[in-house]
């Protein structure tokens, strides 16, 4: 049985990772700083100028430790993963199911339904926590009601395009209420959400959310690989060279519960502050190194939060969710389950 293992994040510029026996050794300025056994790791994420020896890449590929390379700001560049030793029969079935329009429609609908439902749970949970701030509660509940309507419409949607349309609409409503998720205390202009912007993120909240999504994507992608699925053939997301569509599909259900909740509680608990962001010449907002580290720590801690999986009814931790959902996906693809059960959080 797979357990939740740790992920090593390397953010120190100029560091080098080498294989030392059965361990990874992190060298900073040529001096060994840490040595970790590979069997304790699930993944390694390198930010910016971080080198990696071929021997280490080989050993990680062998042991199923995923290495991802990101820019210093957290934009995804590349990954190193071993040969796909996953089950070829499972992958063939995955392609067939993805090619079948009615099946793809059904899965896509399930995924988007759970995404919208989870977003709604996040809003309602925040509304309960915000008791006393009447205007915030009203705004959150109004947005939650609109999402309920989206859920209703999604049930009747008959094409992928209409599902994607409804998803976009629901996202607009959801993010429209994002400001109300922030408690009034740190209500400076720094943390005002206007609209979702990416590549580049134009305000601190967008920078924060985008960074968390990148981390979640690394985990979702690893989960797909680990259970033997092709992370690039999805149901909701269209095929495009290099696009990890299935990993993105898998992520949809988890965005609100894992990443968005963390983003706004980081702001509300003042674990990130206004001076932790800087404005670049092109209008993009970037996190400072200290903020990035604080977010990484918070994300890793979030992954250790316990919960009971709603479908499996098993005690687990948040960090296992991508893997468990990938496992359920594989069971459905193999025919062990009648339908894919997406993750539904009952806040």
């Amino acid at each position, binding site marked *: 049985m797979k357990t939740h293992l*740790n*992920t*090593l*994040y*390397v*953010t*120190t510029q100029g*560091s080098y990772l080498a294989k*030392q*026996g*059965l*361990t990874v050794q*992190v060298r*900073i300025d040529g001096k060994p*700083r*840490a*040595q*970790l*056994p590979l*069997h*304790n790791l699930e993944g390694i994420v390198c930010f910016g100028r971080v080198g990696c020896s071929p021997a280490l890449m080989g050993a990680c590929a062998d042991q199923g430790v995923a290495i991802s390379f990101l820019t210093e700001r957290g934009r995804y560049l590349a990954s190193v993963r071993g040969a796909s030793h996953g089950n070829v029969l499972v992958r063939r079935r995955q392609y067939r199911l993805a090619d079948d329009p009615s099946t793809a429609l059904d899965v896509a609908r399930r995924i988007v339904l759970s995404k919208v439902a989870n977003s709604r749970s996040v809003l309602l949970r925040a509304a309960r926590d915000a008791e006393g701030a009447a205007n915030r509660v009203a705004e959150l509940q109004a947005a939650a009601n609109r999402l309920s309507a989206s859920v209703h419409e999604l049930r009747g949607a008959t094409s992928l395009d209409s599902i994607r349309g409804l998803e976009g609409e629901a996202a607009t409503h959801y993010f429209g209420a994002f400001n109300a998720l922030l408690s009034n205390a740190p209500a400076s202009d720094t943390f005002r959400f206007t609209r979702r912007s990416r590549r580049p993120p134009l305000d601190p909240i967008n920078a924060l959310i985008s960074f968390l999504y990148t981390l979640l994507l690394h985990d979702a992608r690893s989960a797909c690989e680990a259970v033997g699925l092709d992370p690039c053939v999805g149901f909701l997301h269209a095929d495009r060279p290099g696009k990890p569509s299935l990993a993105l599909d898998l992520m949809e259900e988890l965005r609100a519960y894992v990443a968005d909740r963390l983003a706004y509680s980081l702001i509300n608990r003042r674990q990130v502050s206004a001076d932790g962001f800087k404005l670049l010449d092109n209008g993009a907002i970037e996190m400072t190194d200290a903020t990035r*580290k604080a977010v*990484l*720590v918070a994300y*890793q*801690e979030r992954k*250790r939060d316990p919960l009971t999986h709603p479908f499996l009814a098993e005690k687990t931790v948040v960090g296992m969710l991508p893997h468990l959902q990938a496992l359920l996906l594989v069971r459905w693809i193999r025919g062990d389950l009648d339908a894919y059960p997406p993750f539904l959080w009952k806040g």
Partner: protein
Amino acid sequence: MYVLVTYDVQTTSPDGKRRLRRLARACLDYGQRVQLSVFELKLDPALWASCRERLLSIIDPEHDSLRVYHLGSRWEGLVEHHGAKPGFDLEGPLIL
């Protein structure tokens, strides 16, 4: 599970020094060094079996001693640390 490995190796001979080096390297492959000849290993029972095999193949039972303490999975309540070199929590955030 957590396992604590400690050893004493007789290093009067070149062969003893070699055994000491090999033991340290083997322990480092599976866990972290918390004191000079004290290691904490976090591994599953299968991996521990192969690790144990490897350690036993290195020592010379005539001159060396190897002690293993099984701390199980609830090791946090069993381990106290004071002073320098606190070591890092393998389950906590690993950011360098």
